Every structure is written in C-alpha cells, then in structure tokens.
C-alpha cells in the first residue's frame, strides 16, 4: 500500500535522475520512504536513489516492491506544472498506480518487478580521491568536453591540489582545472580515469541542478557522483565504469 502527496518538481527531479540511465526499475517502498537501485542495460552505469518520507507533504506506506516503467512516467510528468501537488495511490496488492494532479487522473499499469533485473549489489571498490564541487561547474565541464570528444578524463593532481577534466578529440583538446577556491578537497590524492561522455551527458543534466556534487575517483577506476535532491530529503548516487587504455 502506498498513499502519498508530493510536489511535482521533486517527483520530476527524482524520475529524471533514474531515467538518465534506465527505462524501468524496481522501486522499494516502506514506512520511511522510497528507494531504488538500477544498472543500465549495457552494465556500465548504476543509479541508487532514496527519497525520504520527509520529501513528501504526506506519506504513508507499507513495505513493498513495485515495477516502474520510467520512460512512461517521464512522458506523463512532462506535462505537469512546476508547483502542482501530485497524489500517488497504490492499494495493497494493486497493479495500477493512481496518479492525480490538476484535475487529471491517471491509472498507470505497473510492471511485474520479477521481469526487471534484480537490484545489483554495489561493487566493492575503493575510490580514495574525493572532491566536492558545484553541480553546475561539473555539468559545464561535461558539456565543454562533449564538443571536442566522446570521452572525458577526470582526475586529481595531488601535488598541485587541482581537480581537472580533460578531453582529447582527433584534432582538438580541452582542459579545465579547478583549484581550492572552486573545489573542496575532501581527500586530494592522485587519481585519473577516463569516461564515456554518452553516459556523463545524461547524468550531468541531472547533477547540474545540485548545489554540490561529491565526486569520488581512483586510477582507472569507476567514478562515484553523490548529491542531494528534494531539498536534502533525497539522495542520489551514480556509479560509472571507466574506459581503460588498451595496451
């Protein structure tokens, strides 16, 4: 059972965070809120999202699991106004989610969770380099890199205490460095990995809205991007596998 009311903007932001990587997911509900964890089809990136009950204006739920067609939800919520209040309702053992806003009443057929890939366990990896920067700066770097290449290197220069991004195209290259005035070095140790911009562009659009994003890096290791949504009542973590240099 789920019965909740939420601000349209928060719901959209949450759906966008998930839809950057997957088209469907298993959503877990309990009395404290909602959560999901999903890996993209190609097995390259993972999203974890939690939304506390405090993110809702009203929230009541039992423990359960529902299958969401994220692509469909994104289309439906595309037409909502910014400050609408949306009410969500799912009866016990129900297969249709009732969504109402602005006088519209939707009945959305849910997916059978068993047809969706099980929640992956997050891989056990150590990413020692940690910095915090503004989501906007991060997104702008990603966009700049995408102009010259389809890959981006992210790293920390420990000696200089710099966080950098670099992209190398066939003819052009671009580099942007962030010093202590722009970035908070939680752990400024040497790191550098290369990532596909196909993924980062979609993730960046979501991260660009966050005040702060914590970036964790290693050497030729995945990157983790963690940030709050819903005014601090929601939390998103992206994990992205690197491209490694062939030898």
């Amino acid at each position, binding site marked *: 059972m789920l019965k909740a009311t939420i601000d349209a903007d928060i719901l959209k932001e949450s759906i966008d965070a998930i839809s950057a990587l997957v*088209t469907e997911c298993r959503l877990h509900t309990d009395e404290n809120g909602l959560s999901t964890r999903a*890996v993209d*089809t*190609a*097995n390259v990136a993972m999203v974890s999202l939690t939304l506390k009950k405090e993110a809702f204006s009203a929230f009541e739920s039992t423990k359960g699991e529902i299958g969401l067609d994220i692509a469909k939800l994104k289309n439906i919520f595309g037409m909502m106004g910014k400050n609408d209040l949306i009410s969500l309702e799912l009866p016990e053992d129900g297969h249709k989610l009732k969504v109402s806003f602005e006088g519209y009443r939707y009945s959305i057929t849910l997916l059978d969770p068993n047809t969706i890939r099980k929640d*992956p366990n997050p891989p056990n990896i150590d990413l020692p380099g940690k910095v915090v920067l503004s989501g906007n700066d991060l997104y702008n770097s990603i966009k700049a890199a995408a102009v010259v290449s389809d890959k981006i290197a992210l790293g920390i220069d420990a000696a200089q205490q710099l966080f950098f991004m670099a992209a190398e195209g066939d003819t052009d290259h671009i580099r942007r460095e962030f010093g202590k005035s722009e970035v908070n070095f939680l752990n400024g140790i040497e790191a550098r990995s290369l990532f596909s911009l196909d993924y980062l562009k979609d993730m960046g659009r979501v991260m660009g809205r966050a005040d702060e994003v914590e970036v964790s890096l290693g050497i030729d290791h995945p990157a983790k991007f963690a940030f709050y949504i819903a005014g601090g009542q929601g939390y998103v973590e992206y994990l992205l596998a690197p491209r*490694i*240099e*062939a*030898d």
Partner: protein
Amino acid sequence: MRTPPRGEPLSSPKVTILHIHAIMKFAEFARICEEIEGISGRLEMTDAISRVISGLDEIDLPIFVQFVTGKIFPDWSPLKIGIGPNLLYDAITLIVDGTRSDVIGEINRRGDAGLAVQAILEQKKMSRRSSRGATIQTPLFSQELDLAGVYRNLEKIARQGGRASQQEKLSLIQSLFQNASPLEGRYLARLLMEDLRIGVGEGIIRDAIARAFSVDPRDVEHAYQARNDLGEVAMLARAGEKALREVRIMPFHPVKMMLAQQGTIPGAIEENGTVAAEYKYDGSRFQFHKAGEERRIYSRKLEDVTDALPDVLRVLGGATTHDVILDGEVIAVRDGKPLPFQTVLRRFRRKHGIEEMQKEVKVQPFVFDILYLDGETLIDLPLIERRARLLSVLSDHVAPQVVSGDPGEIERVYQESLAAGHEGLMVKVLSSPYTPGIRGKNWLKIKPSVDTLDLAVVGAEWGEGKRAHVFGSFLLACQDQGELTAVSKVATGFSDEQLAELHELLSDHVISESGKEIQLEPFLVFEVGYSEIQESPNYECGYALRFPRFIRARDDKGIADIETLDGIRERYLRQKK
C-alpha cells in the same frame, strides 16, 4: 584462457566436467564450437555433439542444440533476432573504440565477423591505430556469461520492437560482448549473425540427439518434422522413445512445408502407376491454422502473414467448422485469370494500407493438403486418405485433383493448367505421407522448361549515369556444403523502379563497401534466367552464367532454398548431352 588445440577429443577431462556442474558457461559452448569447427568428418562430429548433449540439463539442452546449428530460435517461433551487421559493428565500436571503419576493415580483412571480433578483443586495439591507444569500455560488474543467460539476453533483443528500440538492442549486445573473452566473442558474433560456421546442420544434430539418448534416428526426424523445434525434440528424446513417438502437431506452431522435385509425367506414372495430379499454381504457399475462433496464416518461410491476408482468413474460416491445419497456395486473380506471382507477394509483404491493397489485388486460396484435424495429427496418413478428410471438412477452395494412371489423361490436365495461365502440374504419390521440409520423390513438379536459377544476392556495384545513386549490378551466389560461392553477376532485366526498390531494401544489409563494390549480408534470393552454363575461371565455383537476366526477387525463399553447386554442375553436364 587456454585454447585447446584443434581436434582435441571432447572426452578430455575438462569437457566431461559438464556432467558435474549443471550450468553450461558460454565459454564452454565456445570451446566446444571451436573443437567441432576443427572436425571434418560427419560421424566424428555427430559423436562429439552427442557426448556433450547427453550430459546437459533441461535448461541447457534445448538452448545448446538450437545454438549449435547457428539458429537462435526454432523456425516456427515468431521471435526473430533481427540484427544486421551494422548493429554488431556499432556495439563492437562502443566497447573498443577506434572509428567504425577500422572495425569494418578488420572484418573485411578476415572475411568473417567472428574472427574479426575475436581479433579485436584479443588485441584490444585496432591494428591501424595511431600512437594514441584505443580505449575499452569496462563493465561495472564482470560476470561470466552462461548459455542460458546469453539466450535470455537474445530473447530480450528479439522482443524489442520498433525503431526506438535500436539503442536498447545495442546496449544489450554491448553488455554481452563486454563480458566476453576473445573466443566467446568469436562465436557470439557468429551466433548474432546466425551463421556459426562450424558445419553442424540439422541432420547432424538429429543424429546426435538419437545417439545421445539411444533412440531411433527416424523417430527423431519424424518428431522434428512435426514440431519444427530441435530443442523440444531433444527434450522429448531425453524423455524416451515413447514421448518421441507420441509427438503431435499443434495449431499455431507452424510446420515446414513439404517440397517437390522436378519430374516428368511418363516417369511419374512408370514408377507409381496411378497418381494424383493438381494444377501447379504460380502464387505463394501458405499454411492456414484454425482452432476455435483463432485463425492464423503462415508463409512458406513460416512468418505470420495473417494481417496481410484478411480475405483469405475470412473465406477459409468460413469454409470449415473444424480445427484444422491446411496447406495451400494463394494466387492473385483478375477477371478469373491468374496474375503473375509478383502480384501475390505484394500482398504478403504488405504491412500498411492493407484495405486498399485488398481491392487492388484479389487473391484466391487453393487448398491441397490437411495436416491436422480436431486434435489428430494427419501427416502420417497416405495422401489419398488426407484428401478424403480434406474434402469432408472444407466446403470450398479445395484445389481440384485428378487421379489417373493414364499418361494421356495427365498430359491433358497439364495442358489445361498451362492454358488457364497456371505454372504447370503437381504429380503426387497416392500412398505418400506428408513429410514436412522434405523435398522427395513423392511430390513432383512438372513445368515447361525454362532455365532459371534461384541464387543469393551477396554483393552489388553502384550503377552509372542515371543509375549512379542505386546499385546497378548484383553479385549472385549458389550454396555448396553450407558455404556460399559466387556464380554470376546480373545487371539486366531490372526496371528503374525495381532498382530503386532493391537499393532501399538492401542498403540496411551492407556489410562493407570499397570503391564501387558493396559486400552484402546474404538474405535476398533472385530468380535469374540464363542461356547457358559455362565453365569459367572467373568465379571460384568454376562455372558462370551466360546472358544472366533478372526475373524476380523471391521474397518467399530463404538462403537455404537457393541452388546448390551440385545442381549447377548437373545442369551443366545435362546441357552438354
């Protein structure tokens, strides 16, 4: 990973491990394929496969026997993988970067997508790469591929529909290759192209199933004819001879069509005495299934064409109250006269605007056989009894038949058929069972002698002048022991509209392009006319066609149906007489 030397017996300890742990890893499948690829003898191959399958569990067995023939889904299944070489290149390019043309270059150099993928995954970089190294996308989780997991993934790919699904298909393919070793990559690529190149045909796999489970190969063959599904037949064989013999034909699970050989009227009567003669209709073969209110129509290639033929569905559905599977031919007619074959195909291919097309092209079904009636499988009954059942349950649209042992009488029916605009005559042995998929002596086709060959389109060349934006000539191949070998080019007989249509149809199937020459993924069959077959050093097969001309595209035929090199040799020897 250690690669075993070619031809190492499959009974070596690492393979017998199969009997201990239940799940077959894809790496094991790839290793077995590689070993089979190194075996040239049919018996040895059968033996090797039978030893593997006797140890498989109920999950891996059906997948293995299906995969090892290079087909992902059984023929009757509506699931089709639908991946062209372009999608494969895209996926490989995503994993190991380097421009797309480098990947294609590698495939051209090796002449085989499997070997190319293997080499790319082995080198982990392209050979023509500049000093800057290529990069490889790593997966977030590395997981060992297993056979059943690969199958589930392929099933997901086949279930994706529409254009928007291309990205999802690409990601699914990417996820498979990302976790594949080079050897796995080789067989994965070939499996995706549904061409495993290890020489295992249906015959070998049927014999291997019989041997593995100690059942009669004839029972296996019979069950396969009825079910059209190697995986299912393997499971039945595993359950024992009784299960295998009790096999039934089921509605909406199409069976292959029985085929006919060339023959002559005197020869047929000399050998069989009294025979049944029917017109040979110049249309398209179909199979009509009905159970209760549900009805479906399948094409010669067993594709569901129900939606394209609502009129046929209506008239046949109205002509019987029984549950049936019927075999027949549908022809196009105008003012009672049959129209050329090409006209019917326009109806079969139709996905949109079916209503207008119905008015434009009237079609008429002729039913000549019945395979199933109210729960009973009829294929083992003699033709004469099947015919009696057919007449008793279908009130209309039964193809007329003349039974006679008099060559003059049969000849008269033949002339009558030609005069009415049909293609010739079918002569059938009265006592013969219905043998799905078999081209035997029980059905003979008699036509005026026109020299045409059905050949696969394997390449093309850009045209010149006003034809510069379309393909102007095509390279054609026949089959020889499962391999395609070029035998002719054809550049005449096409209208400008046909060339435009062919270009549109083929452009999604381009494997590679160098200069004016295009290499095509073989799927389309041309019927071509010729004046003579000549010996020729120009083509690998040693023969060439004189004055080849395009007659029509045979959309109803697949690559497996094209002329064999033996057939061409035989025609060559015959014309020398």
